[in-house]
């Protein structure tokens, strides 16, 4: 069975990201997954990678991956593609993962499919399902040239355990001078949040213009915390400066597809729907009965968010105590 390379990502704490486990599940459909681990920490991660089906783990423990932007990782993958002739390369559909995919595609003369929400084995290689135009159109794409490179959107493919050996193989690597053009001199981690990462969260609570102000937006954080959810914001909120841009959900900003998306005080313009309409369940709270968000909501509550949301938080608290 052909090898499938899976580029691992880890959190700031050094843990294997959930999306890497999801990639392993997708890779098993195409062949035997081999994880590519860049930098330190492979020993601690090995058990987890084995649990989710990694047959091999190629470990290149070089400081160049953290020291220079993207190019060293693409260079390592290109050399592994040349050595191992994998059936495909899977990367996380994060901004950085996609950049690695792009550079690797140029290096290997291969087609790249970004934003896949589903990956299946086709006759001529992997078939990626991609939501286009914010999910208005569903596309199935393939790669016709080179080694297929697929960037898979976090939170799309379920991570399922399937124990394998995860045999570690050290790979010697030093980045070429060409890959050292963009030097990272400082890595600043934003104040650690207790909340889950927006693109990986299974529940997202987003607030819109209806929250009225930065202070008013606080109620969104309270609801999110009562549900153990990530916080999102509409473009209107970010434009008004009530919440940081990093949390913007929409056509521009983050695209999310959690199990549950709660839209509070968001009208649901095309711009916003493009970032969240592939969510599994959608609940909306808005005072305007004509708001387009209600057209895509599984449950819509027409009412003032400042009375509905506190009651909801209280009810959630009561149910937790039972």
């Amino acid at each position, binding site marked *: 069975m052909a090898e499938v390379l899976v580029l691992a990502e880890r959190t700031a704490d050094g843990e294997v990201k959930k999306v890497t486990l999801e990639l392993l599940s997708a890779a098993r459909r195409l062949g035997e997954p081999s994880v590519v681990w860049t930098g330190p920490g492979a020993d601690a991660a090995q058990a987890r990678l084995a649990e989710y089906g990694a047959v091999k783990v190629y470990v290149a423990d070089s400081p160049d991956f953290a020291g220079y932007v993207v190019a060293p990782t693409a260079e390592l993958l290109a050399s592994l593609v040349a050595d191992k002739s994998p059936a495909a390369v899977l990367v996380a559909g994060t901004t950085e993962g996609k950049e690695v995919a*792009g*550079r690797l595609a140029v290096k290997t003369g291969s*087609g790249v499919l*970004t934003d896949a929400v589903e990956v299946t084995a086709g006759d001529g290689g992997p078939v990626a399902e991609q939501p286009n135009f914010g999910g208005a159109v569903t596309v*199935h794409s*393939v790669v016709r040239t080179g080694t297929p490179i697929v960037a898979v959107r976090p939170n799309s493919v379920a991570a399922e355990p399937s124990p394998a050996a995860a045999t570690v193989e050290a790979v010697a690597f030093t980045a070429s001078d060409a890959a050292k053009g963009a030097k990272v001199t400082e890595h600043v981690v934003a104040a650690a949040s207790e909340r889950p990462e927006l693109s990986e969260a299974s529940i997202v609570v987003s607030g819109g213009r209806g929250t009225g102000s930065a202070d008013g937006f606080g109620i969104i954080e309270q609801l999110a915390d009562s549900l153990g959810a990530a916080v999102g914001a509409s473009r209107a909120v970010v434009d008004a400066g009530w919440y940081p841009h990093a949390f913007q959900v929409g056509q521009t900003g983050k695209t999310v597809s959690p*199990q549950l998306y709660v839209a509070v005080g968001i009208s649901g313009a095309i711009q916003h729907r493009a970032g969240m309409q592939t969510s599994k369940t959608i609940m909306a709270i808005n005072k305007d009965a004509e708001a387009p968000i*209600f057209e895509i909501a599984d449950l819509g*509550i027409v009412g003032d968010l400042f009375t509905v949301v506190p009651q909801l938080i209280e009810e959630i608290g009561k149910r937790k105590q039972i």
Partner: protein
Amino acid sequence: MNIVVCVKQVPDTEVERSLVPGQGTVDRASVDGVINYLDEFAIEESLKIAEAQGGEVTILSVGPAKAAESIRKALSMGADKAVHVIDDGLAGSDALATSLAIAEALKVVGFDLVVFGSESTDARTGVVPAMVAERLGVPQLTLAGKVDISGSEVTIRRVTDDGYEVVTGSLPAVVSVVEKINEPRYPTFKGIMAAKKKPVQTLTLADLSLDAGSVGLAGAASWVEDFAKRPPRAAGVVVKDEGDGGAKAAAFLAERKFI
């Protein structure tokens, strides 16, 4: 400094967009074209750099005849001149082919700094700036939330999922900027009038020494097999808050096992 901003015309994001049946390429004919919203931040940043450091801002766009509208808009914001890569052979280009055309055009035009928006709102691949940096063999200073230039050194704040990185590289370089890095200016009446007289050079595939097999649908390394309009979500329930809206919401969440 010779700054080149890469600008794409995209279908208006405020209306329903689709693909061309049988081709799986973006339907650009039936929808109004607009300048990619995220490119406006790249234009603004370039104008600011040129104002502070001196230099010239060139708009580079690869696209059909219609793209000329977006090029004029970019010029009306204050850019000095433009290059329009236009050739029927380019239609249906994927990201790999697009990056090839852009990189070859940049070699012809010449550049110290290339500036992109973070992605286009139509294909949303987000891979082209990295691809172009790879092709040109210059530093990739992408996803910048802040750009500082001192002599031939470019330092950016690269936005990451958990914060940011400070990244430095030397000119010539490729930069991409994120949404909200600045406040893009509106074209003034004077700017709009001036834009009509600014030079727009057109380049064909032959001018870039590219053959038609390397780009366009013919050269596409990735391929759309089929596509379908996503079925509308099944209509849900909409209820009016009668003092029990929060309780109803909680009951819904409990029923679906979210709480």
